[in-house]
């Protein structure tokens, strides 16, 4: 395969040896190349955490913002310039904890962006506290009696919010995962891909073996256009289904809803002041 232009050939990657972020990075680099995207027109957006360091290791534009706050700038970037491909990569704590409210409302907006959530079911960077997706009962230095809270089910929540593309994958199953992320990026609208990721340093419960044993792929019979069915699959909890749960192909997207793009497709940065409009507003005030 030819040289991947998205690979900046970083010397020192700040993840632990064996971390599940490495296979995700590999998938993302290949995906970007195979979709023939252009680094100059691709923007990676992230919050803060181990997963959120991902854009540091991809040669493209990036906006490495605040913990929990990846979705608002991602939405705005896409809205300000619909010609850009905007991909969010961040952690489970980032997206479902600190960023929970943005998760709710970004889905409602349905901008044409993709959110790849590295779900290691733990707070990695801050050294192993429970995240919203940590399994009940897992003990950590803060949850000393084991996690009590119901784990957040991002798929069920996204389906409840009528997200336009909802999928779950396992980072260690690279081929399937890459194909699904490709579809997510190609999907027009907000695409959520929750990625099972191992954290070798802090999550000793949800290991590679655990993920393998506790997951299976949705089969052909699953109708991805059936919201109720998708929901029922999403709340399965003995074995966790992988694949595309729910997909709406024609859901209107946020940035296209604005009349200014219906008149003219050019990105906002290319537009200059419309003096007449201002003069007209001022003139009305003299009446």
């Amino acid at each position, binding site marked *: 395969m030819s040289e991947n232009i998205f690979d900046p050939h970083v010397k020192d990657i700040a993840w632990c040896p064996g971390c599940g972020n490495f296979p995700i990075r590999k998938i993302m680099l290949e995906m970007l190349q195979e979709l023939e995207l252009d680094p100059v027109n691709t923007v990676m957006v992230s919050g803060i955490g181990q997963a959120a360091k991902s854009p540091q290791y991809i040669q493209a*534009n990036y906006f490495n*913002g605040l913990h929990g706050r990846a979705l608002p700038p991602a939405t*705005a*970037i896409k*809205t300000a*310039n619909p010609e850009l491909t905007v991909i969010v990569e961040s952690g489970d704590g980032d997206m479902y904890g600190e960023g929970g409210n943005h998760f709710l409302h970004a889905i409602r907006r349905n901008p044409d962006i993709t959110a790849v959530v590295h779900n290691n079911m733990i707070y990695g960077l801050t050294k192993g506290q429970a995240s919203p997706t940590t399994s009940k009962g897992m003990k950590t230095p803060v949850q000393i009696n084991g996690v009590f809270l119901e784990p957040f089910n991002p798929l069920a929540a996204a389906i409840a919010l009528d997200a336009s593309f909802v999928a779950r994958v396992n980072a260690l199953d690279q081929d399937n995962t890459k194909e699904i992320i490709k579809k997510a990026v190609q999907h027009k609208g907000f695409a959520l891909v929750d990625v099972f990721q191992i954290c070798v340093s802090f999550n000793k419960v949800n290991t590679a073996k655990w993920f393998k044993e506790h997951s299976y792929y949705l089969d052909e019979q699953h109708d991805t256009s059936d919201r109720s069915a998708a929901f029922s699959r999403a709340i399965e909890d003995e074995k966790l289904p992988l694949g595309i749960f729910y997909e709406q192909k024609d859901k209107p997207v946020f940035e296209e809803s604005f009349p*200014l793009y219906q008149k003219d497709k050019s990105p906002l940065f290319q537009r200059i002041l419309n003096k007449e409009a*201002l003069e007209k507003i001022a003139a009305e005030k003299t009446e």
Partner: protein
Amino acid sequence: MSRKKIAEEISIVFSGAAGQGIQSIEMILTKLLKREGYHVFSTKEFMSRIRGGINSTSLRVSSGRVNAPMEKADLFLPLIQDTTLHLQDKITEHTVIIGEQEVVQFDDMVDIPFSEIAKRCGNKIYSSSVAVGVIAGILDVSDSTIEKTFTTHFKGKDDKIIQENIQAAKEGIKESAKIQEYLEVVIEKDASVQDEMLISGTEAVAMGAVAANVRYVASYPMSPATGVLVKLAGWSEQTDCIIEQVEDEITAVNMALGAWYAGARAFVTTSGGGLALMSEGISLSGITEIPFVVHVAQRPGPGTGLPTRTEQGDLHLVLYSGHGDFPRIIYAPGTVEEAFYLTNQAFDLADKFQVPVFILTDQYFVDSLCNTPVWDLDKTVAKHHFTETAQDYKRYAITESGVSPRGIPGFGKGVVKVDSDEHDEEGLITENLNETRKAMVEKRFFRKFNSVRKEVIEPDCFGNKDNELLVLSWGSTGNAVKHAFQLLESPPAGMHFSQVWPLPENIEDILSRYKRIAVVENNASAQFATLLKGYAGVPVTHNIVKFTGLPFSQEEIAREIQSIQ
């Protein structure tokens, strides 16, 4: 009451419950009087509710520009009985009270049966128009002005309704004869006013943003800042501007930064509580050097406080919101003109210096209306400061000025990496402390601060410059201080700051000439005084503060100055 001659200026106060129509009286009357050639200024105070309670609007009609609150009413027109004595201060023995005796009771009042007259003209709800007519009559407004104004104001309504309203107003004019018994009003008209705009603080800020080519507004409703959002939304079809009401204020700032990053000029409008929530995001603007412009319409805090009242209590919040050290710019307009031009400039400097810029107003300011000359668009700027990137583009190139050329994604051959972690020139996370961190702070904070300081707006000086007493003001209190000076026999020196941060480099020199400095501000803790002491090293000898939620009137300030003269 004895007959009083009113020359130059009249002050009129309307009061009523929310929803009773004093807002529409204000709207028509100000238009009408401006069209007739009067200078008008109107300001309102109202409760945080949609219906009921008691609100008021105060109007000054004058032969010259008089844009400041006044304590006393020459005319008082209550639509309901004010049992709370809310407006007691406005009424003096000289105040002429006009009302419908069936509704309001005062010992000595001019009874005008508004509803009855309105009903006669076709509908009880025309009583606002009758009230408008009464004032128009006192002020000698021509029938043609009445007709024109009502016709444009009610544009789109049924012609019958418009005519009936005009009729109601004309009946009001007739009734006004009753008032002439008490008042002789002779105010000179000024034809040049007719071509001026009638503008609120809200509109001035919103138009300043439009003049800056604003293209993205992300905000969450919050009194008294919502008006700017509503105005920009109302114009958005003409201005091709994206308007997004977001889920919370954290989204507002982070979206705005995303939009600026992608090359669109973005704007946020909020009040203190909302700004408090943006604190972390403002710090993100600081480290990523992404421009940010926010309008903060202050209201009294802490907490929810008094949502529809006024205060200048968020200066410290705005100056220090966000963790860590980074430069910022704070404008505090005192007139609608300043609000327009400074908002416009806020975008230019935010873009040029890649810093957060704050436009600090308050409820009193945004909700006041006055006439002002049509903006001179030649004095505005709307030029982008970003650059086309080369392939080896580095977002945080170390420069002498502290400003690194700002690229945007998709424009040029390079990629644009912005990072909230400390970073190297390229935008990659760094842990190189003694060199990279140090160099970045020196660039981003020290050198850039000096660059920003070169474009600071000097304070506006007035009064008697040689007096040993200096009276300082900032933001919305500026005009009230200027007007107060006119009430004084021998005014001291006056200085008004429309930019409150950074302070001018020579601030110490400017201020050290004065033996005594009094700072007038609408907050309890004398925030600007503290700022001056902390950064200009000057002793402020008198704090003239007010924190009731109401703005200073000119008389109040005059009294305060007198007491220290």
